[in-house]
């Protein structure tokens, strides 16, 4: 019986994953192309045009220095946006009820949407990495750090998007968090600069921003230079992921944002 349920939950989980991946690939012009164009412009303007006048940062060309931050920015925003738009769409058009009436475990639903978000985040991240390789000679210092950081971050922001979708009541609510929370945190998380350049007090303030740890760890994976200790960064990433995942599961079980 237990095995049967586990197998059924696996089938349900893979159904959501396949559905999500097909959706992302079917509307690739909306899901994949815009972030790639946006990042290409960042490379052109900040990297090539302005970057050539900035000089070295932590021993690297400015273009090379900002590349990991821009890759991480793509992973974060695309993982988040994918889940929030897909799950809120299901909620708004009520086809989330297909899942709610089914015997599928809440964890399978959450993991299914997370996998969709991670797929898009990592896909766009990989393409942006290729774009970066066209502009600069990007080294790969620690491949496993790159892989684990990208996985943890995309998982974390996929759950974040899921939570946003649970609470969202209208389409405006879907854009509020990315615009007013996510974007400032990404920009202040050291995408375009090393926090060592900030006055000491602002260095401490910046450390409250969880995105700093992800951006910095990915930069360490590519360049081998970092402002933050690796263990501290991983502890924060894993901690946030576990916390957000548990919160999302609890809310799903209560039916928050789904059941009246």
């Amino acid at each position, binding site marked *: 019986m237990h095995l049967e349920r586990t197998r059924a939950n696996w*089938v349900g989980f893979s159904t959501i994953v396949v559905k999500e991946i097909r959706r992302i690939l079917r509307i690739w012009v909306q899901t994949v192309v815009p972030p790639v164009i946006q990042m290409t412009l960042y490379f052109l303007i900040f990297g090539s045009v302005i970057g050539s006048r900035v000089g070295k940062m932590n021993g690297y060309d400015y273009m090379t220095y900002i590349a990991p931050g821009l890759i991480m920015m793509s992973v974060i925003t695309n993982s988040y946006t994918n889940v929030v738009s897909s799950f809120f769409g299901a909620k708004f058009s009520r086809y989330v009820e297909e899942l709610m009436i089914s015997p599928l475990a809440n964890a399978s639903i959450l993991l299914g949407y997370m996998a969709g978000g991670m797929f898009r985040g990592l896909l766009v991240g990989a393409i942006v990495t290729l774009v970066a390789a066209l502009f600069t000679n990007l080294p790969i210092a620690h491949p496993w750090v790159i892989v684990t950081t990208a996985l943890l971050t995309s998982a974390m922001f996929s759950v974040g998007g899921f939570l946003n979708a649970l609470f969202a009541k209208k389409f405006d609510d879907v854009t509020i968090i990315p615009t007013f929370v996510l974007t400032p945190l990404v920009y202040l998380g050291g995408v375009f600069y090393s926090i060592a350049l900030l006055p000491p007090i602002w260095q401490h303030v910046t450390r409250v921003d969880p995105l700093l740890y992800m951006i910095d760890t990915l930069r360490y994976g590519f360049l081998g230079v970092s402002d933050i200790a690796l263990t501290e960064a991983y502890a924060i990433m894993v901690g946030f992921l576990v916390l957000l995942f548990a919160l999302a599961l609890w809310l799903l079980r209560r039916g928050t944002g789904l059941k009246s």
Partner: protein
Amino acid sequence: MANTNAQPALRIENLRKTYRGGIEALRGVSIEVARGEFFALLGPNGAGKTTLIGIVASLVNKSAGSIHVFGKNADEDPAGVRSQIGLVPQEVNFNLWERVIDIIVNQAGYYGIPRREALERSERYLHQLDLWKYRNTNARALSGGFKRRLMVARALVHNPPLLILDEPTAGVDIELRRSMWVFLQQLNAEGVTIILTTHYLEEAESLCRKIAIIQHGRISEQGDMHELLESLRMETFVLDLARPLSETPPLEDFALRRIDDATLELDMCRGQNINDAFAQLSAAGVQVRSLRNKSNRLEEIFMRLVEEERNASRTHAS
């Protein structure tokens, strides 16, 4: 462990639902539906039918009470209960941008049915509901009637022993409604327990053997269909209007439907006074020119014409 074969298909005990804001939608509802039954749940708009169905199908949180489906407690084994139920909701609730076949196959997946088997089952139900030719069509392109058929096919893909339909024929044409009746009767004959809510009393009368009437969140009548109809003397009146109307005027305690610009249908239960309805209509500025009992003769004539037309085209084609 309880002998599930001896248990009723659905047993609801003292079910209560109070929405945020204090609205009491259900005030202690108890219903028992036997296995293999064709059960009608009737009641005016806002009586609590959809809330009741929503709670049974896990779409709405209950405030109190218990639900057992084939002996399984919904609180103790929610997944076990959900796997026994197929739901056809009142409103369209599938992704309109997905293909018909994908909607069915995905739903099967959510019930743990592997893709290969899901495709076989989908083909069977899409054929049975005359949707196979639309399998690769985006759902948004389907007509209203076919959208309802799609929801029936989706609800059946995991072969549930209990099928709940919330006004499955609302707004569909007579031919489609009749074909849906035949299909549901076949399913019931195969052993599927069916619970149906409908505003079409003739639909409930011709399909269902047992009935419960819900009003203001309470079961006001429950029992054998024929006995109840006899005692209820529920009637439907057709009101011809003196002036055309673009919207259905809101009537308290009466089920009123707008058929067209100049016609309304009014359901009346035992104990209700037609003067109350007329007073409310008059207050809403609606002027009634004439009143008559509803009969199904026009439907019969229409169906006969449709059948004759279909037979003629078949003869012509062969």
